[in-house]
């Protein structure tokens, strides 16, 4: 295995492993809150951060994390104030981020090639100092995502209830936004800024095909994320393609397979176990027993002489002041 003897590949793999773990970990909370596209918005903002780093000659990872955190905080505050809805806030920052980034990169005199390594990931560009930052940030994200799991779950599941439980909802929401921003920066080198959101959302969607609990969804998504990242990095090394695209295509392929398998499984389970009749029927009036006309020898027909009366879906015959209706082999009083 010559591939893993290369130092830059070792670094890429460590970065990939951590990305694969932390992106779905925070992604599970974003999906729970129905903010799947938040990672995308932050990724776009981080482009401005990278460009700022290149322009000023500081480490792009550092400036990207700072700008991404600022952007994520802005998204969260706009959302919480309720002035613009969450998706409008995201859209505003999407475009601002990407336009600002391209503008600043141009000012820095860097071409599209430099930008591409950040947009779609690049294995060779993970420097040793980058790696330390990436490891530190990813570990912090994982500690918060797992350690504060119950609190974050409650906030994402039912914000109002969480507030009445005494949780500091705004702080926890902000924490999720900041963690998402940090994850985006961690994933910048492996998946790239434009595709990082896919790694936050796709493994969660895949895991959901088979899971019932939040906990198992969380863990399955992380396992899937790691698998997709490592497999994607190895493939992109051999095929010499952008790692980000490879990772995301693999993750999506996994989703398609899981969605088909999940549908078949559920259909089969549904056939085997029909819905239980678990709700006792209370307050449903019993059907009124019908009154059979006793000893009715006469058979009515349109020509029998008794006046025919339309009655809903059938015809009644007026017979001695009451109505008769055909029912099987006898006549009912209507």
């Amino acid at each position, binding site marked *: 295995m010559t591939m893993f003897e290369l130092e830059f590949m070792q670094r890429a793999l460590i970065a990939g492993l951590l990305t694969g773990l932390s992106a779905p970990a925070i992604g599970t909370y974003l999906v729970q809150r129905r903010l799947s596209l938040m990672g995308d918005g932050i990724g776009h903002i981080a482009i401005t951060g990278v460009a700022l780093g290149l322009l000023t000659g500081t480490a792009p990872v550092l400036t990207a994390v700072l700008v991404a955190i600022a952007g994520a905080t802005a998204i969260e505050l706009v959302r919480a104030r309720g002035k613009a809805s969450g998706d409008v806030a995201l859209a505003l920052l999407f475009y601002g981020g990407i336009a600002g980034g391209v503008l600043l990169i141009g000012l820095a005199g860097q071409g599209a090639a430099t930008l591409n390594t950040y947009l779609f990931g690049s294995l060779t560009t993970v420097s040793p100092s980058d790696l330390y930052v990436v490891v530190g940030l990813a570990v912090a994200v994982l500690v918060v995502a797992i350690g504060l799991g119950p609190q974050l779950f409650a906030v994402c*599941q039912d914000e*109002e209830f*969480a507030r009445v439980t005494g949780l500091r909802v705004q702080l926890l929401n902000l924490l999720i936004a900041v963690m998402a921003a940090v994850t985006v920066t961690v994933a910048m080198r492996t998946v790239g800024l434009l595709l990082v959101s896919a790694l936050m959302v796709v493994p969660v969607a895949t895991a959901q095909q088979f899971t019932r609990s939040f906990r198992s969804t969380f863990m399955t998504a992380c396992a899937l994320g790691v698998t997709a990242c490592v497999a994607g990095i190895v493939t992109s090394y051999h095929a010499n393609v952008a790692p980000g695209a490879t990772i995301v295509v693999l993750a999506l392929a996994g989703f398609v397979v899981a969605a088909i398998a999940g549908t078949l499984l559920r259909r089969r389970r549904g056939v085997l176990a029909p819905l239980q009749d678990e709700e006792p029927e209370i307050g449903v009036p019993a059907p009124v027993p019908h009154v059979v006309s006793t000893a009715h020898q006469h058979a009515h027909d349109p020509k029998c002489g008794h006046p025919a009366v339309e009655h809903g879906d059938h015809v009644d015959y007026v017979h001695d002041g009451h109505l008769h209706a055909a029912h099987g082999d006898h006549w009912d009083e209507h």
Partner: protein
Amino acid sequence: MTPSQPAEPAVQVTDLSVDLGGRLVLRGVDLQIRPGEVVAVLGTNGSGKSTLVRTIVGLLPAARGDVKVFGTPVRRFRQWNRIGYVPQRITAAGGVPATVAEVVSSGLLSKRRLFRPLKAAERAAIDEALEIVDMAAQRKDAVAELSGGQQQRVLIARALVSDPELLILDEPTAGVDLASQSIFAGAIRERVARGTTVVMVSHDLGPMDALIDRSVILRRGRVVYDGPPHASQTHAHVHPHGSMQDEPGWLS
């Protein structure tokens, strides 16, 4: 009604007005709820009853007047484990699957410290709360797959799990089948017997009406009746038309 009540009121609302987006939804509401009382807040849609309980638990700010919970202004209130809240919800499900037990465990967060796993006693409390609403067999099921009535029962269990002194329910019976309604009428009855204070918002009490010992009727953001449950209103909803003031006994 009795001015010399020794215990401090569970809820004390004084001259409360609430403004939602420039519209006065509550106007000068006064309400005092003593420990152990079971109060129904009744009224039509838009009468401000949900707004009233949401302000009591601190989800909405007061434009004027103040709200005290257990003697503390709600803005500074921190003993949230004394309150069990059931928000008005159509579903208990989020974007990711979650089991019944997971949702109910959120109700324990007012007591849990950060970075600590669930204790055995807390697990037992979850099972007990699910037992009360007759959902113990479904504890590992995904909430999204349950019926509306069962999901509402899960939300009740989430409020009961911390063993609160004050239970606030916002439309707990809306869209819930009769079987579920009678199950949690039983759950509430059991809490009431233990001295829990209950505030319930509803426009149709259903099987709960036997539990109520006081009803407060809101109309256009004002309290129009506050007193013992009235025969004509306990079983029925309040109708939007017809002036209540004209009826004898409506205004105390």
